[in-house]
């Protein structure tokens, strides 16, 4: 299908049209933080953003979610399942790394015989209308993780920012359908497409971090008790910033809240993280991840070892949020480089 052009001044028109049928989430500047929020007016969208602080996973995997409610009548308990949400969502402006995170989230919530309907239903009803990154951040490293600042495969509609206009490429069938309905879009010219390719190359060259992820995988596969983990975790304070605001972290805690006075209650799930003290605490009182050493190690293992082993995908998209937000500047890039260095040394000794 032919690429189209949408001018930035036409964004309010686009929003008006899309919101007739969809709930539109777009980057918004909320008290200085960029977040994907529900938008009804195109003027509210922050188009000059790099990436959001809170990842868009929140739209399909909210911070808290009611799984069901119940009422109690003596010994009888009646369960009311959460209503199936049939809202159709569009995430406008999602970045390629975050779009890829949705693929990773799906691996977890759709694993084997265990289907998480709450997530999958929302995911099924969510369309990704993303924009390539003309200016990746210094902390970005998607290209080391099979990603690219202009990767479009994980989206339904992909756009490239050409200053005053976007080149719009429909990717999936749903995307093609939507673009077809927006009959007022004009066709992209050859020069627009050329410029888009140019920008893609430029963006790729701007990413300065390269990491040998295979080395990290090999290290993690064998060096569970290496003393490096102590060094890496020494300054970690054990807050959940890195994982709460990670687009690929999926852990949640299930809690029951009972309102005894009204004989009712609800079962909720809320975000959880392997950095917390309750995370792997057993009922016996034993905690196999008792200190920051095990907790820091688990986060790295999960992303760079368990994900590749279980799903054949790397569990990190290289968005750099954890790097920007870690209060003690425990930089993921530095951690991975340390691991890789040890791995390289070991490989050398084996060859020698």
């Amino acid at each position, binding site marked *: 299908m032919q690429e189209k052009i949408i001018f930035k001044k036409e964004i309010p028109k686009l929003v008006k049209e899309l919101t007739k049928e969809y709930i539109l989430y777009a980057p918004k500047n909320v008290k200085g933080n960029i977040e994907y929020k529900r938008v009804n007016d195109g003027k509210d969208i922050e188009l000059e953003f*790099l990436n959001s602080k809170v990842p868009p996973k929140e739209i399909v995997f909210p911070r808290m979610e009611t799984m069901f409610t119940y009422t109690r009548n003596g010994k009888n308990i009646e369960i009311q399942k959460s209503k199936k949400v049939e809202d159709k969502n569009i995430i406008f402006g999602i970045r390629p790394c975050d779009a890829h995170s949705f693929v990773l989230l799906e691996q977890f919530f759709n694993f084997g015989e265990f289907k998480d309907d709450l997530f999958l239903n929302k995911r099924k009803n969510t369309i990704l209308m993303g924009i390539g990154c003309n200016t990746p951040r210094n902390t970005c490293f998607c290209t080391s993780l099979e990603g690219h600042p202009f990767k479009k495969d994980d989206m339904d509609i992909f756009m490239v920012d050409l200053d005053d206009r976007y080149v719009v490429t429909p990717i999936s069938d749903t995307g093609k359908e939507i673009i077809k309905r927006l009959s007022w879009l004009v066709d992209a010219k050859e020069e627009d497409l050329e410029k888009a390719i140019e920008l893609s190359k430029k963006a790729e060259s701007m990413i300065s971090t390269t990491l040998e992820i295979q080395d990290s995988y090999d290290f993690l596969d064998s060096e569970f008790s290496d003393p490096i983990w102590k060094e890496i975790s020494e*300054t970690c304070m054990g807050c*959940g910033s890195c994982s*709460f*605001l990670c687009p690929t972290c999926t852990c949640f*805690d299930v809690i029951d809240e009972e309102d005894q006075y009204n004989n009712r209650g609800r079962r909720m799930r809320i*975000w959880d993280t392997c950095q917390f003290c309750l995370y792997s605490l057993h009922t016996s009182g034993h905690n196999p991840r008792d200190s920051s050493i095990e907790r820091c190690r688990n986060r790295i293992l999960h992303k760079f070892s368990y994900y590749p082993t279980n799903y054949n995908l790397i569990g990190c998209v290289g968005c750099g949020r954890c790097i920007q937000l870690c209060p003690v500047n425990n930089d993921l890039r530095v951690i991975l480089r340390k691991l890789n260095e040890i791995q390289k040394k070991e490989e050398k000794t084996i060859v020698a």
Partner: protein
Amino acid sequence: MVDIKNENQKIEEKMRNVARDLLKEKKVDLIIGYSEGTLPLASAPVFIRDEQEVDKLVWNNSCYVNLAKYLIPNIRENINGELVDLKVGIISKGCVARSIIHLLVEHQINKENIIIIGINCNGILNRRRIEKEIGAHEITETELSGDHLIVKGNKFEKKFKFNDYMNELCKHCEIRAPPISDSLKDNIVGECQEVDSLEDPFEDIVDFEKKSADEKWAFMNEVLKDCTRCYACREACPLCYCNLCFVDQNLPTWFGKTSEISDILIFHMVRGLHLAGRCVECGACSSVCPMGIDLSLINRKINKVVKDRFDFVSGLSLEKLSPMMTYKMNDKQEFMLEEN
């Protein structure tokens, strides 16, 4: 004109010399300090065991982490099959030293194991405020020039007046170096200061106090609603050292854990109350909040109440117990009946 960069270099040089000597003379096993961060407006806490590595220590105005946090639980190492408490030298601006003093008052650490390496702090930058003002752009470089901070990024350059962009708490801080007392003089090396009386008019919370109850409620709702409950504030707080925080009590559950505003509010309010007469106003909680929430307001309000009622300021003396640790027959108690 003040030259912040020059000030920082002097602080850094003195601090390194003291740290080097301590390690050389084997007076400490370990130095906890700050090292260069990998991002602008960041610093990374660092543990140094070798005098050759002392030059890793830096002082810049982004050393916002309160290093006293690392003293609990005691830092131990396995030496010849035995777990031994290490002797720790800790780079201490005024508020870090005050935390240590308060931790000593609460019997959480051993005085014999701590050497306070005092520095004369010249203020911490409010990085969240700067980031918010830069908005959606990325800060790639910062530079101090005279009394200004120059922030650079792709296609922009902005100048911030250092004194205006310090943490609110730093702006009125009177205890920039460790407060010295007779009982602590063997534990402090480097800079220190004597603190007799404090003039803190609590001007920063005047606006808040003027609000009506409804307005306060609306204001706190607005401030706290972005909280993701990652608990970075708690983890960064040197005085939040409970083995199991009230909010993590789950047998049975004491407090709601959702991100509904009522649960968020109650977490921050109860944490605030637990810090009554204990908070040393280091501002670490606000600096580490990923959402940029200014939590110090709650603690400032409570500290004002403690100051007015009990004439107590935390972390100044080893001898004086904090109001929540003690009881006097003539403690004011009219608030039990009525509070205006």
